[in-house]
C-alpha cells in the first residue's frame, strides 16, 4: 500500500466516524429536554465539523480550506454567545412582566 492510499484510508475513516458522531449529537440536540442541552449539543457539532473541514482540506490538498475552518470557529462561538444572550434576555423580560402583573393585581 502506497503512502497516498494510506493517507486516503485514514482520512476517509476519520470522516466516517465524525459523521456518525455528528448525527448522534444532532439527535441529542433534538431530544434534549432543556434549552441549555440543545446549545451544548450545537457547540459539540461545531467542534466536530471544524475537525471535518480540516480533514477535507488535507484530503484534497487545498490549504485554503483551513481559512474556512477558522471563520467557522469564529461564527460557531458567536452563535453560542448570541443564543445564550437572547434566551436569557427573553426569560428575564418575561419574569419582569409577570412580577409587574402580580404587583398590579
Amino acid at each position, binding site marked *: 500500500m502506497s503512502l497516498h492510499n494510506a493517507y486516503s484510508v*485514514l482520512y476517509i475513516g476519520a470522516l466516517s466516524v465524525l459523521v456518525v458522531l455528528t448525527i448522534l449529537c444532532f439527535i441529542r440536540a433534538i431530544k434534549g429536554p432543556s434549552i441549555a442541552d440543545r446549545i*451544548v449539543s450545537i457547540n459539540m457539532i461545531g467542534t466536530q465539523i471544524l*475537525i471535518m473541514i480540516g480533514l477535507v482540506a488535507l484530503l484534497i490538498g487545498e*490549504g485554503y480550506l483551513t481559512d474556512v475552518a477558522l471563520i467557522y470557529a469564529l461564527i460557531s*462561538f458567536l452563535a453560542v454567545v448570541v443564543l445564550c444572550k437572547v434566551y436569557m434576555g427573553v426569560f428575564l423580560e418575561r419574569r419582569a412582566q409577570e412580577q409587574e402583573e402580580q404587583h398590579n393585581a
Partner: protein
Amino acid sequence: MLEWLRFILTAGLLISGLIILITAVIGVYKFDYVLNRMHAAAMGDTLGLLFCLLGLTVSAPDLATALKLLLIICFLWVASPVSSHLIARLEVTINPRWQQLPPTPGKDEKEEEDSP
C-alpha cells in the same frame, strides 16, 4: 521511511482524538442533567480538538496551513470556556431548581421545554 514515521504519528494522534470525541458523545448520552453533560462536552471540545488538529498539523502540506491549524486550536481554547460559562449561567438563571440533587428528570424540566 521518514514519511511513514510522519504518517504513523498523524494516525496515532488522530485516532486518540477520535476516541476522546467518542467518549464525549457517550458521556453526553449517559448523564441526565445539563451541568453534568457540559463536563463531557467540554472534554471533547478541548482535548479531542487538540489531538485531532495536532495530528493534522503534523502532516500539513505547507507551513501556512500548519500555522492556521494551530491558530484554530488557540482560538477554540480561549472560546470554549467562555461559551461553557455562558451556557451554565443560562441554565442557572432559567431553571430555579438547579441545585436539587438528584435533578428530577422529565417532570420539572418538561414544563420549561421550548418555553422561550
